[in-house]
């Protein structure tokens, strides 16, 4: 499987978001039913993922983290292999060894996914160095959270990328939460983009729940990185509308803030806009929803049918 072509039709963007949502919801219910482990879902953040990934070329490389389903699915990952991985099955992208938290898919250019918050930032310069020194055209996109931005690796990574002219598009998904800590309790500034100026790295914040705004901003940012061969930081402002890790009762969440963000649901916004401007008919919308739920059902069946790895796998692939 290769990275899917960037979506050119707005309906494709909507379909990707629907797929991500349905995928995450299948895990939420699977996990509530005890059939699946809990995961860090990206519900509410679909536009931020879809908008950025569809701004990329096939030879660009992506680094991501524990909250990666959106990035993977937008890049064309097979939901069946993803679910198999979440369930620790042999047909998962990582043979079941990763589970949900660190799914890499090299064939899609999704490399070195790590659940160590901050590790994506520490590895991105090296990936970009390879691109540069080996003469590869692709840029490197590093997705990270507002929490990761508080790790020292943020500072070290941006300083090095600026110094060494590394073609990295840093994408901070500021979803207002760092697990059980609100961004306000953890950051001395409102925005991670405010921190980029220290390194003379151009930066922009964008409304992260508007997939078209994100796509446009990401296209501009990626073009700038591609041309300048220098880093750029794009901050997508969004919200984690479910808990950190399923199950999570969100008892600690400010209900007014949550409600305000739920009212700005990226999928509803996109669908309403397409319906309103006539790019989508209600029948087409229903067909999209159907297609998506069929894909997830097929994926689930595939994952459930996939066997667990054999015991001999315990020590395989430790050393090259």
């Amino acid at each position, binding site marked *: 499987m290769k990275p899917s072509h960037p979506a050119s039709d707005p309906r494709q963007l909507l379909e990707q978001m629907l797929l991500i949502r349905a995928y995450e919801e299948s895990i939420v219910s699977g996990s509530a039913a005890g059939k699946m482990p809990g995961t860090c879902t990206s519900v509410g953040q679909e536009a931020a993922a879809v908008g950025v990934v569809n701004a990329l070329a096939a030879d660009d490389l992506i680094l991501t983290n524990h909250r990666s389903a959106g990035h993977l699915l937008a890049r064309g990952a097979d939901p069946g292999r993803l679910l198999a991985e979440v369930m620790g099955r042999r047909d998962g992208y990582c043979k079941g*060894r990763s589970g949900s938290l660190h799914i890499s898919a090299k064939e899609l250019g999704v490399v070195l996914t790590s659940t160590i918050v901050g590790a994506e930032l520490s590895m991105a310069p090296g990936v970009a160095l390879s691109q540069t020194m080996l003469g590869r055209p692709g840029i490197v996109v590093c997705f990270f959270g507002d929490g990761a931005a*508080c790790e020292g690796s943020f500072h070290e990574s941006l300083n090095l990328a600026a110094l060494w002219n590394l073609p990295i598009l840093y994408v901070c998904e500021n979803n207002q939460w760092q697990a*059980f800590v609100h961004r306000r309790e*953890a950051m001395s500034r409102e925005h991670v983009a405010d921190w980029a100026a220290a390194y003379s790295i151009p930066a922009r914040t964008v409304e992260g729940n508007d997939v078209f705004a994100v796509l446009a901003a990401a296209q501009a940012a990626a073009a700038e990185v591609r041309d300048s061969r220098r880093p750029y930081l794009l901050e997508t402002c969004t919200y984690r509308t479910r808990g950190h890790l399923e199950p999570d009762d969100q008892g600690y969440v400010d209900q007014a803030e949550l409600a305000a963000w739920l009212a700005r649901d990226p999928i509803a916004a996109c669908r309403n806009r397409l319906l309103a401007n006539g790019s989508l008919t209600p029948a087409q919308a229903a067909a999209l929803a159907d297609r998506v739920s069929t894909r997830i059902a097929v994926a689930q069946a595939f994952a459930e049918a996939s066997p667990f790895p054999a015991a001999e796998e315990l020590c395989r692939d430790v050393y090259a």
Partner: protein
Amino acid sequence: MPTLTLYDAVGAALTEEMRRDSSVIAFGEGIATKRRELVDEFGGLRVRNTPLAEGIIAGTAVGAAATGLRPVVDLLFAPFLCYAMDELVNSAGKLRYMSGGQFSFPLVTLAMTGAGWGVGAQHNHNVEAWFVHSPGLKVVMPSTPADAKALLKSAIRDDNPVLFFLDIGLLYQPGEVPADEQTLPLGRATVLRNGQDVTLVSYGKTVQHCQQAAETLAGQGIAAEVIDLRSLKPLDEAAILTSVGKTGRLVVVHEANRLCGIGAEIAALVAEQAFSSLKAPIVRLGGPDAPIAASYPLEQASVPQAATIAAAAARLCAAQPA
């Protein structure tokens, strides 16, 4: 006796010690959210959420400990300690000695570790041996809620930096915990079962596996002695040597990688100091030299289970005395 999980026993220890001593403070990534009752009782200055940055959490604890506070920090999962190694090893562990004894570092670092949740090698990596190998640090890993509470209280009162590991697999198992303000000294193992044929030494989750193995062995007429180390440094060498002096046979069991693990230390200790008592080879059962997979069956396969322990011990007892 009241029944608590290990997670709640930690909370109870924190509460009691924070009541006792106003210099005890607690901070970490979400501790004020998850242990809201501590904030309610002690206020948001003594119990704080932090930015997501293990290095500065640990470093702040080191600086605070040296100058009059007694911080307890929650670094969540053991692999995240990798971001705090400098602060724990180079600062907390060394600056007392290097300064000629000018400072002490009464601080406790909590970290979860071990199999049970299928969360993969970046959450489940048993690194307690690193801190045993590093000078100036104490290392504790309880196997029951009662021990967790009593040992954590001692760790908080100790004037040295203590790494306090919580076995993920035990975290929500309930256990009886005395209601009183009991403490347990660091560095004292406990003999959970007496026996004269073979010694099973362990800590954390595999203690239970050793106890099950001992049951099985009893059925085969083999009397196994089961020792729970509780503290890995200081290590209760006397308890181990006394037991092996009696049984002449040793199986050390833990979940961590065998290579240079606690099992290696104990095997070496016994081969040095109780050699003449030994009737059979020493057996180490531990994790393989591999990251731990998220996939549940693989994760479980990486942990020494009761049947393996019983089989190893039975083999030792069957062998001719050397």
